[in-house]
């Protein structure tokens, strides 16, 4: 469960300062490739001596609420704005985690953000990676932030 507190600190900072939403962290756990239903995931790949991924998984209702708050306008369907917003959230979270894992900033490379969404899909684990997932709640809705890391050598 290493890095769980970093995930909590980064997520609460980003949501309070950029989205004006206070989110409450739950107990960290290891996610077992459970299927994601009617959800959207923002994903950033990490490459270098430490590789892995940072993902934020949100049910559609949570993604719509977050994007609406993020943009300051009502968003009613999963569209380009929602995919872009969730990808950008993953990007900010990954950048924050990178500053913890790689303070100099030259060892870990971050990918461009990508978003996956659908009625029924899974985001698989990196082979041999250590994984931690933190659940968060706000206004009766929830989302997950997942970090997978593998250090070679």
């Amino acid at each position, binding site marked *: 469960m290493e890095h769980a507190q970093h995930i909590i600190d980064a997520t609460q*900072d*980003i949501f309070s*300062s*950029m989205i004006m939403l206070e989110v409450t962290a739950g107990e960290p756990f290891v996610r077992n490739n459970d299927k994601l239903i009617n959800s959207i995931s923002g994903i950033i790949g990490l490459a270098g001596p430490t590789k892995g991924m940072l993902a934020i998984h949100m049910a559609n209702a949570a993604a719509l609420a977050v*994007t609406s708050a*993020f*943009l*300051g306008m009502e968003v009613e369907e999963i569209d*380009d*704005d929602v995919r*872009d*917003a969730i*990808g*950008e959230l993953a*990007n*900010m979270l*990954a*950048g*924050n985690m*990178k*500053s913890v894992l*790689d*303070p*100099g*900033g*030259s060892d870990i490379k*971050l990918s*461009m*953000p990508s978003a996956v969404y659908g009625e029924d899909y899974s985001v698989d684990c990196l082979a041999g990676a250590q994984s931690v997932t933190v659940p968060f709640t706000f206004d009766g809705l929830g989302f997950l932030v997942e970090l997978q890391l593998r250090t070679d050598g």
Partner: protein
Amino acid sequence: MGKTVLIVDDSNTMRKIVSRALRQAGIDFSTILEAGDGQEALDVLSANAVDVVLSDINMPNMNGLEFLKAKAEIPAIKDIPVVMISTETGADIINEAKSYGAKGAIKKPFTPELINETLGALL
């Protein structure tokens, strides 16, 4: 007279967020221009009088560092100040950006107050 700012970010959402933060920052911007990558930013700077640029680093096509290097080669726009606004704010990458002419860096997430403080010193 209000200032003109150019926001460079491949994320349409982030351009909207930065634009909103600029309006909340209390600096008198009369015009907010946008570009989706470094090449688009060069095109906008060549066609408009811009007072300051806020640029992401991690972008497709031409990233923020490549944009700084290319801009430094164009006499008509090389002196327009650029502030990097990015999740990538490690010492190495910021020093590299400054070596190419960046005047400062703002880490995402950011607040309007931080934007005011950083840009206020340049305008």
